[in-house]
């Protein structure tokens, strides 16, 4: 039974008017905070990746008092740093038919019509200016001979709108945002807390009042109060253990906020990236991404014969199955990620995989090298080929790369409305931490963009609109019963974890959970598998609570305690992911339910019954579904065909 008091419909607060005027209409009518009042407003920004650093810098420039938090030892190390491929913007520099509308359309279609039209349009609308901003900050984007900006095309679109800085676009964009933020630190407008992990959200009277953090260097818990809390804590794809994410990436901040009342949305929608290095043994701790840009010139294939034992170069052309080119002739090797990953899994599961563990497919540059010359390929992808050789010891100019799908990006996250506000007053979610613009599948190079647009262009307008509405007597204080209660509970929960003193490491549980999720809530899902996974996750959680071993105590630097907190949350998030996938009885984007496919194995969307965002509310420890209906006013959802 769903408690009627909790089965509300979340209000997306989409402004009225034609699609192309919605954002300007919002800005026109938004409330402002006068310059001399801004200093009085305290803002907490958790996370200093692209979303957090850009928000912190922009808000501090406006005059607000900003505090930032991150778990790394410097804001510059947030995982945005690892993005290789590029960032999209509808500049139409190539005159190839790009426009804000086309980018909007591509993104909405790429997300399989499971995102809000107005949000997606705004993302496209703000994209062009982001490139201007980044260039002004000194981001050294690739240039043409004439000195103009260069760009390229990326998976799933037919125009060139992806701007890049060698294979280190995320690093360069992040350094731009980090430097802007550090400038504000130097000016005294931002207080940066590194090596501080947010462990709880404090809510009182339905409003976010602040956070509790643990100093990772000495274990001290401290309280921080503010008028608004912005979560920009990134993706939680590390829940799969083997992923392209960094070791510390986590779902803790958003999950603990969820437990304080914030809705999550579509938590099971995870992008599994097609071009990663395959697992080579049980000891493995991460799967490195090889940029998708490689698919512009590399051809993907597997042998036509099962259990092929010849090395790649001895397999003649007619005995190779270029399965993407075969199945999707018009997009070929550039088919979107979900489709490419699923096609690879199909071949691997059918026994055509290659490599030591038969878990990979070939990405072959032979033809590209023959046609364009080694020098050109080296100029385009040299650093990626070097990276490949560093990790595998194999020279990819001579033999094809081995690649395999890996968990990469969380489309799901905290539910937010058009203003990036969660359903808790004063709590916002930005960047990968929220569910917003990407629907059921994110297009390559759109998420650096989203993180930046959220931080540089959206929150500086939507947050003041909220702050200006706060009554004057609303002064943040940490000296309240709510803070006291939360701190006591947090300390007790840390002590409880430490007291278990069992026999298995935290990583043991993390790996087991990751495997369960890959098997049952990964590229392909079924009711039977998901039900099984839910039961197994419950058992695993029980086991964890009885048998995990965390050496040491809480008043010191304790890496295992940090990891244990994150994995404890993952063990709850994983269950909700499976429930989310189970209740969505259709296939859309990255969510592929085996029961819902066409005769030729393509995803079968069920618009009539499932055009909604699955939002999850936590009631007495249980996940309860509430729906935000998706209405399509401007584009009629079509079949998402890339054939």
């Amino acid at each position: 039974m769903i408690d009627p008091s909790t089965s509300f419909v979340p209000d997306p607060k989409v402004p009225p008017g034609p699609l192309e005027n919605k954002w300007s209409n919002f800005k026109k009518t938004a409330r402002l905070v006068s310059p001399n009042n801004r200093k009085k407003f305290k803002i907490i920004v958790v996370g200093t990746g692209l979303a957090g650093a850009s928000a912190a810098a922009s808000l501090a420039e406006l005059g607000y008092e900003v505090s930032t938090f991150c778990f790394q030892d410097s804001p510059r190390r947030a995982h945005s740093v690892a993005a290789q491929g590029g960032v999209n913007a509808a500049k139409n520099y190539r005159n190839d038919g790009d426009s804000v509308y086309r980018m909007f359309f591509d993104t909405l279609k790429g997300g399989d019509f499971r995102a809000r039209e107005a949000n997606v349009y705004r993302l496209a609308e703000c994209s062009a200016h982001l490139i201007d901003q980044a260039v002004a900050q000194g981001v050294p984007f690739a240039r043409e001979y004439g000195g103009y900006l260069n760009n390229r095309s990326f998976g799933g679109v037919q125009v060139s709108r992806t701007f890049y800085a060698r294979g280190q676009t995320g690093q360069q964009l992040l350094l731009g945002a980090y430097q802007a933020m550090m400038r504000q630190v130097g000016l005294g407008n931002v207080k940066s807390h590194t090596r501080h992990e947010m462990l709880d959200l404090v809510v009182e009277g339905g409003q976010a009042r602040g956070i509790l953090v643990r100093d990772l260097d000495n274990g001290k818990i401290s309280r921080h109060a503010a008028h608004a809390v912005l979560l920009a804590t990134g993706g939680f794809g590390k829940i799969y253990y083997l992923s392209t994410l960094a070791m510390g990436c986590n779902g803790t901040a958003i999950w603990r906020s969820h437990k304080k009342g914030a809705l999550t949305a579509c938590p099971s929608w995870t992008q599994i990236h097609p071009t990663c290095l395959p697992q080579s043994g049980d000891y493995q701790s991460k799967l490195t991404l090889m940029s998708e840009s490689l698919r512009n010139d590399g051809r993907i294939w597997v042998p036509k014969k099962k259990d092929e034992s010849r090395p790649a170069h001895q397999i003649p052309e007619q005995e190779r199955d270029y399965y993407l080119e075969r199945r999707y002739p018009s997009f070929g090797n550039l088919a979107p990620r979900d489709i490419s990953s699923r096609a690879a899994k199909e071949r691997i599961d059918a026994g055509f995989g290659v490599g030591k563990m038969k878990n990979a497919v070939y990405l072959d540059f032979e033809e590209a090298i023959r046609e364009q010359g080694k020098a050109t390929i080296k100029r385009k992808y040299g650093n990626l080929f070097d990276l490949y050789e560093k990790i595998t010891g194999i020279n990819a100019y001579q033999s094809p790369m081995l690649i395999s799908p890996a968990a990469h990006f969380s489309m799901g996250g905290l539910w937010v409305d058009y203003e990036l506000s969660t359903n808790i007053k004063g709590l916002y979610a930005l960047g990968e931490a929220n569910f917003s613009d990407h629907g059921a599948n994110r297009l390559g190079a759109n998420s650096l963009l989203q993180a930046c647009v959220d931080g540089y262009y959206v929150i500086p307008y939507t947050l003041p609109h909220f702050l200006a509405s706060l009554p004057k007597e609303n002064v943040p204080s940490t000296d309240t019963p709510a803070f006291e209660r939360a701190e006591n509970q947090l300390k007790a929960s840390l002590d409880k974890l430490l007291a278990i003193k069992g026999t298995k490491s935290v990583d043991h549980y993390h790996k087991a959970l990751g495997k369960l999720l890959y098997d049952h809530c990964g590229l392909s899902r079924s009711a039977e598998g998901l039900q099984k996974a839910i039961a197994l996750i419950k058992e695993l959680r029980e086991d964890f609570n009885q048998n995990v071993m965390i050496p040491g105590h809480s008043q010191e630097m304790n890496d295992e305690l940090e990891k244990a907190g994150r994995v404890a949350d993952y063990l709850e998030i994983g269950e909700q992911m499976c429930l989310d996938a189970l209740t969505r009885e259709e296939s859309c984007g990255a969510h592929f339910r085996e029961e819902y496919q066409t005769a030729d194995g393509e995803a079968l969307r069920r618009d009539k019954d499932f055009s909604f965002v699955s939002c999850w509310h936590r009631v007495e420890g249980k996940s309860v579904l509430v729906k935000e209906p998706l209405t399509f006013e401007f584009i009629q959802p079509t079949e998402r065909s890339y054939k």
Partner: protein
Amino acid sequence: MHFKLKIWRQPNRHTKGNLVDYELSGVEPDMSFLEMLDMLNEKLIVNGEAPVAFDHDCREGICGQCGLFINGRAHGPHDQITTCHVHMRAFKDGDTIFIEPFRASGFPVQKDLKVDRSAFDEIIAAGGFISVNTGQSPEANSILISQDTAEAAFDAAACIGCGACVASCKNASAALFTAAKISHLAQLPQGKLERKKRVLSMVKKMDELGFGACSSTGACEVECPQGISISHIATMNREYFK
């Protein structure tokens, strides 16, 4: 593979540390160096012993969080690579491996192999930026930058802030780190206006933080994972005395 490990253990910033011996077998050549440490830690943890604390995050050579002094070299046996990219195939079965933290007065040890590199953030906060507010920027293609200039600026901008340059310098100088940012921004038209102010305040901050002087031995560029050239230090000096 089997290894004898000599690992620096130090409980916290204020207590003295020492090298502790460990033995580890069953290591596979394709394991990364950090996965080898994971394996050791797994063994320690199930015995209820404190695992070895070491820095890492992305494990793909870009975040700059990892950094170990392995057999007397920053980031281990290869040139121009991060610790997370070192694999066990680089060692011989039966080898003894010394594992220590990066050492420099600017980088105090926090615990075991972890050091505090927040001094780098302070250097950037002193001037490692272009003073442009969000929303002020002109159309990107109104600033033309030749391919060569963009590439040269990138070479400097590629720094990951790992601190291997400091750790491998006998004077524990932060010249390469600081010079890379100065050179990146000074080469671009957008960054030229503030170049004098930038170099003066960043160099002043670097000196204040207790980093040593550069005596041009070039040890830093050998260990820099991004291969950043010491020619940027010359650029920094030119900018300074201009």
